[in-house]
């Protein structure tokens, strides 16, 4: 069992009304230091077996075919650092 993350973002040249709406709201809420926001999707995918090269390649295939629309979106695939890790509210990670 492993967890693989697929991040899907609109291509930079594609208009992102959601990101713009969030940016506007940031400014209204007084977060003036925010200069741009893009909103995309994040998939947490549980797979049987380890998240080795082969699995990551398979998931990349899945992402290219199903999870992202290559006409408008880019994606990236990576193994999650801790399978089963739960997001807790406001946890700060300095990793990337």
């Amino acid at each position: 069992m492993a967890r693989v993350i697929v991040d899907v973002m609109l291509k930079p040249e594609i208009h992102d009304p959601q990101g713009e709406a969030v940016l506007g709201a940031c400014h209204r809420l007084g977060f003036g230091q925010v200069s741009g926001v893009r909103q995309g999707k994040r998939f947490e995918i549980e797979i049987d077996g380890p998240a080795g090269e082969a699995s990551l390649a398979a998931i990349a295939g899945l992402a290219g075919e199903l999870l992202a629309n290559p006409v408008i979106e880019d994606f990236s695939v990576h193994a999650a650092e801790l399978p089963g890790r739960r997001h807790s509210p406001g946890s700060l990670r300095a990793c990337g």
Partner: protein
Amino acid sequence: MRIGVVTFPGSLDDQDAARAVRYAGARPVKLWHADRDLRGVDAVILPGGFSYGDYLRCGAIARFSPVMSELVPAARAGLPVLGICNGFQILCEAHLLPGALTRNAGLRFITRDVRLTVENTRTAWTRGYGAGQELTIPLKSGEGAYTADEATLDELEATGRVVVRYAAGAPNGAARGIAGICGETGGVVGLMPHPEHAIEALTGPSGDGLGFFASVAGAFAKAAS
């Protein structure tokens, strides 16, 4: 003639599309997403709705249905196909049409009677209209903003493949006000507004939408006579 209407799980306007086909004097034939079978129909409609809930991306999952594996080559070989709303999204996801449909500019679902200008009357689905004719037809979608890269948009314009355009500006932020386009040969047409909801004044804003169904039906009536 017989016009197939595909039902995917989550299709909603399939009954309405079938009714429009009937009103146009043709025979609707039910097609099921899970069957690799077009039942010998003369044309196909992919109706509106939320196939598979459209949770991932509109049309993204429906594109992989068994029926699509028959439809895609048939469309490439000339079978007329009309994709309405979700059907348009499926046609784009299946790469039968270029571009994609993205979130409305206002981020909200919009139901609105919109005015459209018919710009291409050579397609199987619009040949019954006059060039430049204005139609009033309901639009109802949350992800209806047509998008493509500039080169594609330029090419669509240059080759006359913009079939219908919002006459008073796109309410959803669609690129260049594009409401519907066609494939290279004009057999495959996709549009966001719903002509099947404008087939009579009793239940729609007008009867203007009937022409899409009558166009394809009339073409066959002519061919048969």
